[in-house]
């Protein structure tokens, strides 16, 4: 990655998603449905707009999404 690309990447991370995103409370309401839609092969981002963008902007909600996805998928102990 060039210096210019590094700079843009850093800024984009700092400034978060450009598209519409839900807040943390709404994300928590929808996260289980989002995960199951995704595991069913449905386009969850299209069905529940703003959730995917929120994962890009909120590291805490993203961690919970990743963990929930693993559990819902039936990851063995």
């Amino acid at each position, binding site marked *: 990655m060039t210096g210019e690309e590094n700079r843009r990447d850093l800024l984009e991370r700092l*400034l*978060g998603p450009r598209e519409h995103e839900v807040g*943390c409370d709404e994300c928590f309401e929808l996260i289980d449905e989002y995960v199951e839609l995704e595991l*069913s092969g449905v386009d969850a981002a299209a069905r529940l707009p703003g959730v995917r963008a929120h994962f890009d*902007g909120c590291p805490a909600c993203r961690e919970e999404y990743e963990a929930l996805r693993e559990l819902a998928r039936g990851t063995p*102990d």
Partner: protein
Amino acid sequence: MAVEASTQTAPVAAYPRVRMDKALQRSHLPSARTSQAWLQALRSDGAAQRQATVDLHALLLRATRHELRRRRAAFAHLRGEELEDLATQAADDAMVAVLSKLDDYRGASRFTTWAYKFALLEAGVKLRRRAWQGREVILDPEIWPTVADPGSSAHELLEHGELLSFLRDAIAQALTPHQREVFVALALNGVPIDVLSERLSTSRGALYKTLHDARRKLRRELSAAGLVESEETVIVQEDS
């Protein structure tokens, strides 16, 4: 084990779940009840209800232990007993939350997935706060670049002197004092949102809204300077 009542209508799934249900049956969950059976058992009396609460706690503990295992590298310094205490406390708190919100379950996912999210929230919050226990949270925008942790965005910015200077000016001029504190802590210094919410006695949702508004203002400033893409597609309402 409780069985599903034929007279009750189960929540209708809006999409196929056959694959996931099979995965659930294969996994070693305390009980492979249907979602409706979970609800019915937890709302019942006597032995069925007691067994369901025992099974629910085991399910939640499975989730909190799972989360601890995923992130064990970050907690290598903690003893096994301490981690198990964290997992149990998180499962206990999640149990209270799930039981108090049963009426909110609308069947958009399996009951187990819905319940897991409470356990993962509790475990995540406890882990983040435990990791920052005793650490100072830098809120002062005047000193943040000089005390940046290696690996934080603030530290990276130090390598881009001109950008750092521009961003400092934008932060000083465009943001309110509260937005400055929140942006510096969360976006620049990488403070976990649950740690900051505890220190500032507020909620994750309220903090994220403040961060979102701060980011939006800064994007406007930086896009005017040609440093980032514009915010044309951002449509979330800002606080009045």
